[in-house]
């Protein structure tokens, strides 16, 4: 029987790793993710997880050791955030290019400067072009579940890409919630052994990995990463369905909430989705026709699901904890691109908010709603809006 425990998302991530039984974990401490390797090192110390825990001297070496281990053919896991993920940047491309299904738990945190340890999504969003799959958890249960599913999708032969699972710094990493820990036997059946046909370092059958490719071959190598991302869309649906069957929890790439007959749909990711759903309930009580949608799978980008979502609203209000300077948030670019050639499409209004751990309150959402309502009324509106700024100190 699955057991329920009260735990932080970091612990849920460590539990997910324990259940997935990676053979190698290489990690380096960084706030807010440190508890993940701490907990894993306890599991290893107590003999509850039979893994090599490589206590590396940097995140760059953490991911490099993961690449080495994964190239040697074993399931591999690490956890990081913020500057740590940024330090891994170079090797993230390599892991994807070498088609190594490493999984990283990311405690989504802002990037310096100014140095700030609190939540936004700039760290993993900035890695969106690396080829990695990206999942975002709304709560601690989702953090555990999505890590298990990330392994399954990443290791699928149609995919073979690394994956990161993001969950918000402190809001989730350090907040306790009840989490259901699935049975080991069921997880074993769900995940199976990882026995790669493409990545191993076996003297009995020597292969060369990580070669140089001239212009005659480089582009095709990149294209296979594109194809793998495309393939992942179907595989994710299959894995979500199988997960629901085995564990009873339903996941969707884009999850909708009270979107029927909505004029305005708020779209967001991560823990903010919880706040937004409550805000939608609050507005619905007052008769305001709004809904919410949560992007759980950000890479591969769920273009088809976004197109379907767009049919349900007159305005999409994107609530984003990240920024691409002079452009807006990453979701704004991705949603715009998904809808650009649709004959009928809603207006899209982008909101940058909650950066560096700034709380997002109903008052902030009221501010966003007012702008979205201008768009709904056909009035002029700003496309990109920074919400909750302290204008008195600017």
């Amino acid at each position, binding site marked *: 029987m699955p057991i329920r425990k009260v735990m932080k998302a970091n612990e849920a991530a460590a539990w997910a790793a324990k259940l997935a039984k990676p053979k190698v974990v290489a990690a380096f401490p960084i706030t807010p993710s440190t508890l993940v390797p701490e907990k894993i090192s306890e599991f290893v110390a107590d003999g509850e997880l039979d893994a090599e825990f490589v206590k590396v*001297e940097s995140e760059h070496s953490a991911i490099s050791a993961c690449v080495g281990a994964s190239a040697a053919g*074993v399931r591999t896991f690490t956890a990081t955030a913020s500057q740590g993920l940024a330090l891994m940047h170079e090797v993230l491309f390599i892991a994807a290019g070498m088609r190594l299904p490493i999984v990283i738990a990311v405690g989504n945190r802002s990037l310096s400067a100014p140095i700030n340890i609190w939540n936004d999504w700039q760290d993993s969003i900035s890695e969106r072009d690396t080829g990695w799959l990206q999942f975002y958890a709304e709560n601690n249960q989702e953090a555990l579940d999505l890590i298990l599913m990330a392994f399954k999708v990443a290791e699928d032969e149609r995919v073979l890409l690394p994956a990161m699972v993001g969950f918000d710094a402190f809001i989730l990493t350090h907040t306790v919630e009840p989490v259901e820990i699935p049975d080991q036997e069921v997880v074993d059946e769900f995940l199976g052994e990882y026995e790669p046909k493409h990545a191993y370092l076996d003297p009995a059958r020597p292969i060369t990995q990580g070669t140089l490719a001239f212009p005659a071959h480089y582009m095709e190598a990149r294209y296979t990463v594109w194809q793998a991302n495309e393939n992942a869309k179907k595989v994710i649906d299959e894995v979500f369905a199988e997960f629901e069957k085995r564990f009873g929890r339903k996941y969707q790439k884009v999850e909708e909430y009270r979107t029927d007959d909505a004029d305005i749909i708020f779209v967001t990711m991560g823990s903010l989705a919880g706040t937004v759903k409550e805000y939608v309930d609050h507005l619905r009580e007052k008769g305001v026709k709004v809904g919410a949608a949560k992007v759980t799978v950000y890479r591969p980008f769920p273009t088809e699901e976004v197109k379907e979502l767009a049919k349900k609203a007159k305005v999409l209000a994107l609530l984003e904890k990240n920024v691409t300077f002079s452009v807006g948030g990453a979701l704004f670019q991705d949603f715009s691109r998904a809808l650009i050639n649709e004959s009928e499409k809603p207006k899209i209004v982008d909101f940058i908010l909650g950066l560096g751990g700034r709380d997002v309150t109903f008052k902030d959402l009221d501010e966003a709603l007012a702008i979205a309502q201008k768009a709904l009324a056909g009035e002029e509106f700003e496309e990109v809006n920074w919400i909750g700024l302290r204008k008195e100190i600017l």
Partner: protein
Amino acid sequence: MAVRKPPITTREYWAPGHAACAGCGCAAALKLATKAFSEAMEEKYGDPNAFAIAQATGCMEVVSAVFPYTAWKAPWVHVAFENAAAAASGVEAAWKKLGRKGKILAIGGDGGTADIGMQALSGMLERRHNVVYLMYDNEAYMNTGIQRSSSTPYGAWTTTSPPGKYSIGEDKPKKWVALIAAAHQVPYVATASIGNPFDFVRKMKKAAKVDGPAFVQVHCTCPTGWKSPLEKGVEIARLAIETGVWPLFEIENGDFHNIKIQPPGGGAKVTREGGRIVAIEFKKPIEEYLKPQGRFKHLFKKPEAIDELREQIKAMWKVLGVDVTLPKPEE
């Protein structure tokens, strides 16, 4: 008829057809290193193939693994420039969990080791991974077109240490990574040279056989970067040993009080105390080593710079606990 046994295994792991420059000393070093490794694995585990290689970006990486070809007959992985030691750590961890016997060979050039890979190397040594790190030292960033590294010797021309009105070429003493590696108190650290292949093979075998990490820094001629004659690679490397420019030593478990020095040959007079070499009187002046290399050509117009190099070499030997006399060329 008696058939003489070859001095080293005829098994090849670094196959012909790679794209290294003619006369490349590093290619020769890798060929010997993998053969030595194979012999060591055969002797230790009964399996000559019980090793895998993790290699840093650099000359020997780009010339050996150009898709869809490979020069490697051993399991081999390349990740990036600065992380061969970290990648090797991961491979070793995986092998441990797979219950696989053998040893991991990490390979990097001087740039990938002494500079950008220094941190990963230190981590790997400190964590006591069962890895031999082989630093092939051709004393500059040759893959990018001959830029100075911290392993470039004093006075050498490179494209980023050009001699000029206000420059004598590289103006810093060479950094000796082997000494830094030894400070980690790992089981085995050695310097070697393609100028003495037998010594190099012996050391590689020893490194491969110890339990835990080992580090070998091998001096390799680069005719392209050193502007030296293609056919004189081994000869020039040997002159580095015989003139005192390149010391051959071994340090076990970080015991700096008992550094094993190999006699340099070339007529040098060696003084021992209690079996340990404490002084060497070299007979060949360093000019004999510098002369055949275009990278030092400009120094011959500035003899005081060569004297400065001599002083730096003496200071380096002093760290090894050896008083050396370096002759000047006869007038």
